[in-house]
């Protein structure tokens, strides 16, 4: 390993010559850190040239998807993969303007009373099996996502929709129970699926997107290829996209350096920090409040049904220090999930619940917990999300210092989903959520806050009514006041402890161009190109 003085141009031979790439190599031998420490100074172009020539984009992701059904998975990793390429919605939320752009719908009108939304569908759209896309597909998709028997996590977003009918082959009319300012944002996350494909959607999904599904090897990779009859004739530019599941962030970085990966989706600040030292790597980022990290609390389970306990936990976490140390200042501490950029934001609320263990102790004492009668709780966290694990460890440390009995459990994502969503069996879990488009209506109808189906199982008397009122209020000032009232309620009740807002970070090699990272986690890969560098 000669030292050329350029950290990105040295060792390459090891991985390339033996036929395993560095990412796999490090994954296998990750334990031999000494070895890794001496050989990780890598980078360069040998492998990159091989991978890029065919117009294939190889992307590193941290965890696997769980299903191929776009109406059943809210996982971030799913949105950024299958959901962004194989399937489409009626509209796409532009990350710059945060307004709805045409997708499967080319135009829409809202009736004067705000209760009827009529979509005109794009012409010449075909499903990946060649059959034409029609209004009936939209009607089916929205009805399916709303159907309680299907159990789609997106049903919350469709709460206000009372009916959907096909007026003709290219026209769909959506009827709303009340005026719903956030309805386009909500519809942007509901994927349009094909009725005749439902039986096979778990193995051979068919969509209308720029890429067709090819295969998914659980735990290894997901692959999609160009759909030649895509309605935007010039798209997609790529021949294929392959996502490799590389849970270890260091192995992903190594893959980016040796060119076996050209794009890393959703990386953490420490990876951004480390990638800054690599030559020829670009950091792609979004607005600074696309995600928030939080602790979800099972408010149905004692003693977390007592809001004093939840408030005590909020005081036990040092958000300022966490964002500085773990996110290297790239995240913004806040206790309010609504970012200050939204006009509905409750002024000066983000700094409430400062880090104060004395307050924690006092609140827990009120709720009957002390050194002699310690609070026993388990914090769940998802394997592969290092910042979330740090959050769990920090809260654990602070509570254990007060004499409580807190354990941290790192779970594989599929097990985690079972314990959080499918069969709720948890005290507290770390999590992150999209703040959604620039509209509080979307956030308060998200799986984290929707009265009927939120992860925290929190629905105090009056909440659903207040939310319904806010969502349907057309007068701007009144609407803002109602949303502020909602935030007061959330901040007082503390069903979840928000920690920070942060942008999404992607890392790409120099040759990757044209990626649009969407605000609700749905990206546009249609114009992505990879330079065969």
């Amino acid at each position, binding site marked *: 390993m000669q030292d050329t003085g350029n950290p990105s141009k040295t060792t390459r031979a090891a991985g390339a010559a033996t036929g395993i790439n560095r990412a796999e190599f490090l994954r296998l031998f990750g*334990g031999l*850190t000494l070895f890794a420490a001496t050989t990780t100074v890598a980078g360069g172009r040998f492998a990159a040239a091989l991978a890029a020539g065919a117009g294939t984009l190889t992307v590193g992701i941290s965890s696997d998807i769980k299903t191929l059904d776009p109406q059943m998975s809210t996982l971030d990793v799913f949105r950024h993969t299958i959901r962004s390429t194989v399937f489409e919605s009626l509209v796409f939320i532009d990350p710059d303007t945060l307004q709805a752009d045409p997708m499967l719908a080319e135009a829409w009108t809202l009736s004067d009373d705000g209760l009827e939304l009529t979509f005109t569908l794009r012409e010449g759209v075909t499903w990946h099996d060649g059959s034409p896309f029609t209004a009936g597909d939209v009607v089916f998709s929205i009805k399916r996502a709303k159907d309680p028997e299907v159990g789609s996590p997106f049903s919350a977003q469709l709460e206000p929709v009372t009916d959907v009918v096909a007026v003709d082959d290219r026209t769909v009319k959506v009827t709303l129970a009340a005026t719903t300012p956030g309805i386009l944002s909500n519809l942007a996350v509901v994927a349009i699926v094909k009725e005749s494909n439902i039986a096979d959607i778990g193995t051979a999904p068919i969509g209308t997107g720029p890429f067709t599904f090819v295969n998914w090897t659980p735990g290894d990779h997901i692959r999609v290829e160009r759909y030649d009859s895509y309605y935007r004739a010039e798209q997609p530019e790529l021949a294929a996209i392959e996502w490799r599941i590389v849970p270890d962030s260091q192995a992903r970085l190594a893959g980016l350096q040796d060119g076996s990966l050209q794009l890393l989706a959703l990386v953490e600040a420490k990876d951004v920090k*480390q990638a800054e030292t690599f030559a020829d790597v670009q950091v792609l980022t979004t607005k600074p409040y696309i995600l928030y990290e939080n602790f979800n609390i099972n408010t149905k389970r004692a003693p977390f049904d007592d809001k004093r306990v939840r408030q005590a936990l909020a005081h036990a976490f040092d958000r300022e220090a966490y964002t500085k*140390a*773990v996110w290297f200042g790239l995240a913004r501490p806040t206790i309010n999930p609504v970012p200050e950029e939204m006009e509905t934001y409750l002024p000066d609320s983000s700094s409430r619940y400062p880090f104060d263990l004395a307050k924690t102790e006092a609140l827990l004492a009120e709720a009957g917990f002390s050194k002699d009668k310690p609070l026993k709780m388990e914090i769940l966290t998802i394997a592969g999300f290092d910042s979330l694990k740090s959050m769990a*460890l920090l809260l654990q*440390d602070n509570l254990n*210092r007060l004499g409580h009995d807190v354990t941290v*459990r790192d779970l594989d994502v599929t097990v985690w989903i079972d314990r959080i969503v499918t069969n709720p069996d948890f005290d507290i879990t770390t999590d992150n959520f999209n703040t959604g488009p620039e509209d509080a209506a979307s956030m308060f109808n998200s799986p984290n806050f929707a009265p009927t189906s939120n992860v925290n199982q929190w629905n105090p008397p009056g909440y659903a009514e207040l939310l319904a009122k806010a969502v349907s209020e057309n007068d701007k000032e009144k609407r803002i006041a109602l949303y502020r009232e909602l935030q007061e309620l959330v901040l007082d009740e503390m069903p979840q402890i928000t920690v920070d807002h942060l942008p999404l970070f992607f890392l790409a090699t120099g040759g990757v161009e044209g990626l649009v990272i969407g605000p609700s986690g749905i990206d546009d890969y249609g114009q992505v190109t990879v330079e065969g560098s």
Partner: protein
Amino acid sequence: MSENAPAADAAMPGSVARQPRRASLLRFLMRRHPLALGLVTLFLIAAIFGPWIAPHSMTDTDLGAALQGSSAEHLLGTDPLGRDVLSRLLGSTVVAAEAFLIVVLIGGIFGTLLGLLAGGLGGILDLVVSRVTEVVQGFPTVLVAIVIVALLGPSLVNAMVAVGIAAIPDFARVSRGVAIQLRDREFVQAARGLGASELRILRTEILPGMIGPLVVVASFDGAQAVMWEAALSFLGLGIQPPAPSFGSMLREAQQYLSIQPQLAIVTGVAVTAVILGLNLFGDAISDYFDGDGR
């Protein structure tokens, strides 16, 4: 090896009972294996006194001091959550020693008992024990560990029970071998002639003869246990946070390789020193019982 059966000695080194007094083990180690002795002494000091000599708490986080290099305050720097690395390494040594003990106790007690009975009594029992140990040996340790941890939940004890079970065949095979060699020797026959029961013969005549070889097995399997503990906790299957362990520390260090390389280097050196020391020590003990030590 003056007494009776030099042939047996060749087949099973270190297995002969009633050998003449050797030189003291300590003096032998100082003269012939100073590195092994030094590393193991350090390991023992760290494992026994670690909690008292640690300069800081092993679990207290201090985000203001995250990822620091060496300083007077933190001799070996701090980890991503600002915890003192030296203190956590000392804590990891305690965990490693616990892993060593759990594995050697499980493997030693069950393995020796099975091997002693199988070799000493022979017959059907011998056949069954031999086949069963072979089957157990056929399972990859890490698979057994993952299954046990999946069933019982991740913890140091659960992970090490799996490694301990995997160690049983080692102890069983060695003790069986010694028992077979010794069971027909003159001093055993003499005891038998005096009317001692078979079980008494196993206990008083044969068991003492296998101490040497078993110590050798214990030191190697113990070193293996330390390595498995590190490997399993690297995967998140061992001791749970916030307790430190070589494996989980390496895993954390790896995430910050180019931001704070010292973290990986210090932890890597520590775990290497412990495992190397224990393995060298096993070699040394083996030399000693093989007769070099006389």
